[in-house]
C-alpha cells in the first residue's frame, strides 16, 4: 500500500541532516496524475501524509487544535489542487507549507501552547537505562526550556526550525514549502538554533 511506503521511509530519515528523500518522488507524481483524473483519489494523499502533517502540527498546538488543523490542511490542499506541480517538488513539503499557513492563523493558540509547556514541571525520571528511553527522558526534562525558547523565536524562525526538526524537510524543501529563498532558510535556521543553544546545556543533550 502506498501509505505504508510513506511510513517506512519516514523512520529512516535523520532529523536535521540534509538528506534528500526520493522514496516518494515517483509515488507523488502518480498520485497527482490520479487525482487530476479523479478528485476522489485525493483521499490517498490524506492516507499517506496525514501522520506526517499531524506530527508537525502537534508539536506546535495542543492535540485538539492539532486535529483540527490537520484536517484543515487537507481541505485547503484539496481546494488548491491545481496549484500543485509535481515538477516543482514533492507533495510532503507542499502539504507542510499549507499546514504552516494554517498554524499561522492560530498564532495565539500556538503561543498559549508553548507557554503551558514552559510552565510544566519536568517529569520524574524513569528507572530504565536503555538508550532510547534515556533520550526521551532527557528530552522531556528539557521540554519546558525548549518551549520557552520557542516563544522567543520570530514566526519565520519558528516555521523553518520546526519544518526541519518535526517535518524532517531538507533546506531545499523548506524553501519550497514556505516559498522563500534557500539562503533565507539557512540564516533563519542558524538564528533559531543559536537561540535554542542558549537555553540548553550539555546535560540536556547527553543525559
Amino acid at each position, binding site marked *: 500500500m502506498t501509505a505504508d511506503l510513506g511510513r517506512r521511509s519516514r523512520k529512516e530519515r535523520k*532529523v*536535521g541532516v540534509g538528506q534528500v528523500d526520493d522514496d516518494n518522488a515517483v509515488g507523488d507524481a502518480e498520485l497527482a496524475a490520479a487525482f487530476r483524473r*479523479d*478528485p*476522489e483519489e*485525493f*483521499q490517498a494523499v*490524506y*492516507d499517506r501524509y*496525514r*501522520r506526517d502533517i*499531524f*506530527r508537525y502540527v*502537534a*508539536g*506546535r498546538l*495542543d*492535540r*485538539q*487544535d*492539532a*486535529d*483540527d488543523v*490537520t*484536517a*484543515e490542511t*487537507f*481541505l485547503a490542499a*484539496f*481546494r488548491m489542487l491545481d496549484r500543485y506541480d509535481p515538477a516543482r517538488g514533492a507533495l510532503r513539503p507542499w502539504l507542510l507549507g499549507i499546514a504552516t499557513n494554517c498554524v499561522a492563523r492560530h*498564532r*495565539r*493558540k500556538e*503561543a*498559549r501552547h508553548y*507557554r*503551558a509547556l514552559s*510552565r*510544566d514541571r519536568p517529569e520524574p525520571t524513569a528507572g530504565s537505562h536503555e538508550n532510547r528511553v534515556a*533520550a*526521551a527522558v*532527557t*528530552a522531556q526534562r*528539557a*521540554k519546558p526550556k*525548549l518551549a520557552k525558547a520557542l*516563544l522567543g*523565536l520570530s*514566526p519565520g524562525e519558528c516555521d523553518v*526550525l*520546526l519544518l*526541519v*526538526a*518535526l517535518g524532517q524537510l531538507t533546506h531545499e524543501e523548506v524553501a519550497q514549502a514556505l516559498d522563500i529563498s534557500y539562503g533565507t532558510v539557512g540564516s533563519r535556521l542558524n538564528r533559531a*538554533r543559536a537561540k*535554542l*543553544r542558549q537555553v*540548553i546545556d550539555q546535560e*540536556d*543533550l547527553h543525559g
Partner: protein
Amino acid sequence: MDELQLLATALDEPDQSPEAVDQGRRRLGNAIHGPARSHRTAWTAGGLGLTAAAAAVVVVVSGHTGPTATPNGPPASVATPGARMSAEQVLLAASSSALATQQGSGMYWHVKMAYIKGYTSDRSHPYTIETWARRDGRSWVRLGSSSGPVRNNDPDGPYGHYADGFDFGADERLTLTQIQKLPTGPAALKARLLSYNRGLPMAPALEGGLVGLLSGTPAPPKVRSAAFRALAALPGVKSLGPVSGGQGLLLRGPSKNMLVVDPRTSKVTGTIEEVVNGRRLYGGNATLVAEWTNELPPVSTPKIGPTEKPRRPSTR
C-alpha cells in the same frame, strides 16, 4: 544528539485517535464529493433496485418537521393518503399546497441532512450535517451527530463551508433578500437556476437546482410553487407510490434521484445516489429538517487543557 533532535523528541506526540483520523477523512470526503458548495456534482441515476434501500433510508431517519399547512387544509385535488398518484398529480398538488403554507419565522434557517454511504455506514445512525444560516448570512454547522460541536460555517471562515440553504450553485451564495426575490414563474425560475449551475449539463442542473431549492432553502411560497410546476413539466418523472413521508418520485436522467413529496404540506425530502465519472460515491441522503428556528445550540469554543490557566494573550 544535537539540539534539533532534542527538540524533535521533546515535541513528539502520539498519533491521532482513530476517531480523529476518521473525522478528518470524512471532512475531506465531504469536500470532495459532498455538500461543500464548490463540489456539488451532477445528480445520479440507477435502476429501481435502489428504491427499496432509499425508501428504507427515509423510513429510518424520518422524524422531520416542515412547513405546516394552514387550517384551511390542502386543496381537494390531493388524493387520500396512501393512494397512488401520478407524478404530475403529486407535483401539481404540492404546487398548490406550497402557496397555502406559511413560511415560518425565526432567526436561523435550520437544515439537517442525513448521509448514508451504502457500504460503510449504519443506516440507523447516519452521518448528519446540520447547518444554521442566520438572516444576515452568518452560518454555523454541526457534523456527524447531534452531540458534536457547533462550528463556524462562514463561507470565508477557516473551516470550509457546507451548503446551508443560501447556496444555490457551485459558487452562488444568495442573500436572504435575493432568495425572497427569486422568480415566481416556472420558466424564469428554471433559467435562473440554470444560470447558477453553468458547469453542469442542463438536465442535472435543473433537477438538482429545483430539488435543492424545494428541500433545503427558505424560498418563499410562490417560488416553491413555481419550482413544483417546473418539475411537473419535466419529462420522464415516475411515481413510486406512497413511501414514508409522502409520495415517492423518481426523476429521469443518468442518475438516480428519488424524491419524497408530501402533497399536503409540500414538504420535500430527497434521496440521492451521487455518481462521478461512473463511480458511485454516496449511498444517499435525506433532508430531515428544513425550517426557520430561533434556536442555535451553543457554539463550540476551543477547549482549555488542564495545565493552562486563562491568561491575557500576549504577542510573541
